[in-house]
């Protein structure tokens, strides 16, 4: 079953005098439970593509369907609500809220969704335990290592029970041990809970773990490979 269907997706930036075709006519379908890496050199359009998939940026042309929803037809306020209930985000620089503890960061999303305190507590602790941080629930981000912060970010991304998780260069700031731990966690979540992950990455370790690798160049898909 397709979680995401992208048709003829293009993005042209008009910021400078020269038009920049960041993404050009991409057609793509991502199925539930895929563990997909989007790779390519800097400036190939990975982040722009991911931003459009996540409803953070509007395409110039084409359409994105997530489940039954045409994402590019949604208004700005509807998009925020759509993201809250359908998409989990993991950022390169973790981007946790520094004044909240690990548990509060995970709870934050559920609080926005209007979940009860009891449900939030239970799920936040369960998710943090799942990513190996059951003993650090009350620690603020400044008291956690980069790898631990990124694991909290993964738990936060999963808190809303999203249809898929978008991870923009999630390992770029991590050392090899932290990267390995994080990838193992995400792979396990993908395998055991059928969570769909889409990464943009330069990291060969991520590419090795991915079961589908989509290679972009000049805003176009030049290779789409599924591993056995």
């Amino acid at each position: 079953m397709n979680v995401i269907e992208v048709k003829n997706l293009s993005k042209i930036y008009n910021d400078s005098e020269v038009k920049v075709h960041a993404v050009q006519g991409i057609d793509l379908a991502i199925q539930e439970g895929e563990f997909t890496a989007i790779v390519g050199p800097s400036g190939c359009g990975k982040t722009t593509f991911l931003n459009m998939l996540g409803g953070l940026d509007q395409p110039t042309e084409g359409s994105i369907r997530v489940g039954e929803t045409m994402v590019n037809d949604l208004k700005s306020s509807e998009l925020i609500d759509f993201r809250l209930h359908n998409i989990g985000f993991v950022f390169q620089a973790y981007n946790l809220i520094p004044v909240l503890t690990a548990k509060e960061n995970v709870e934050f999303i559920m609080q926005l969704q209007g979940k009860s305190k009891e449900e939030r507590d239970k799920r936040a602790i369960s998710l943090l335990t799942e990513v190996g941080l059951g003993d650090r629930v009350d620690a603020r981000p400044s008291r956690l290592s980069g790898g631990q912060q990124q694991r909290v970010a993964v738990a936060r991304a999963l808190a809303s029970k999203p249809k898929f998780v978008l991870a923009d260069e999630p390992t770029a700031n991590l050392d090899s041990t932290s990267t390995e731990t994080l990838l193992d966690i995400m792979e396990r979540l993908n395998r055991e809970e059928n969570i769909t992950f889409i990464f943009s990455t330069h990291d060969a370790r991520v590419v090795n773990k991915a079961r589908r690798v989509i290679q972009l160049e000049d805003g176009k898909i030049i290779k789409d490979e599924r591993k056995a």
Partner: protein
Amino acid sequence: MANSELKLAWRNIWRNKRRTLITVASIYFGVILSTLMTSMQNGTYSKMIDNVVSFYSGYVQIHHPDYWETKSIDDLFVPTDSLMEIVSGNKDVDMIIPRMESFALMSYGNNTKGGMLIGVDPPKENELTRLGHWVSKGKYLEPDDDGILMAVNLAKALNVQIGDTIALISQGYHGYSASGLFPLKGILEFPFPAMNNFGTYITLNKAREFFSALEMVTSLVLTVDDYDDVYPVKHHLEGSLGDNYSVMTWDEMDPVTKQMIEGDKGQGIIMKGILYILIGFGVFSTVIMMIAERRKELGVMVAVGMNKLKLAKVLFYETMLIGMVGVIAGFAMSVPLVWGLVNSPIPLTGEVAEVYEQFGMEPAIYFGNDPMVFWGQLLIVFAITLLVSIYPLSKILRLQVTKALRS
């Protein structure tokens, strides 16, 4: 959610403790300074008004409806029992002092001068205006006295001494001719030069005889328990007495003092305005920095699904909390400070003190503790923070998530 937004805002303002403390301190000192300034102004005005009303006019006067325009001896009224019952029935009225005043020619030997002849109830008048305090030669009037008190310059112009008899001539009530002889009982020396030129005082009964206006008065001077009672008393009496009498407050009778106070208040407002503009910019710069350094974080919050209005609410709470912490701290210091100064005014010394004493005022700087002294500051800081909070609100509503994430 509101609680968690408030909790988030509270934690956010303490991210950079030093900056928040500096901003809070600027509000704190601003509130204290502004409260003290307002309190001092109020105390000074209150004392000034007390001096004005206790020097002559009282807080409120009742006249014949035409008297204030004509100042004619024909526009008198009888303080009937029913009138006195209504006036004294007002719980805020403290004293009722009757007067009869009109112009008269005063003559001694070959010298003649015009002046104001004022008939008073000596004990009551002394209680309000401390008239006896200004007697520089001779004695103050007894209740059944036949004598006259005369302002010093007038006495000099007529070349009279204590015990000399002065001839007075004027127009009496409804065309009667008024004339009489009065021995000079005392000479008055007021601190205001203008008053030394024309004021003369006799007892009310003698004035009534002189003007052939038995049982009548030109005015009933009223004192009230508290300055705040002046306008309620006026409105009550106007409602009860109808068009048969005119009820005037001290500032209607003495608009110059009122204007002087208003002018001074205007200066105070400018000073406080400058103070609060500085505070406002202090808070504003903190808010600008708080937004600028958290742009990416704000972008992330919107990206993961936080409604922009909710986010704006958090930033609004942050601005308000900074303002509130400053105001509460400022209050905690200024309330006891003002109370202390109200109970122990700052004494003046040297030449300034002498000038104050010459004018019959106590040589001290007075402070007021009207609740508005405090509440006014709260309202102003609230208004400033409300104004400043427009900035984060507009920033959030215009936030472009992808740009913020790249920042």
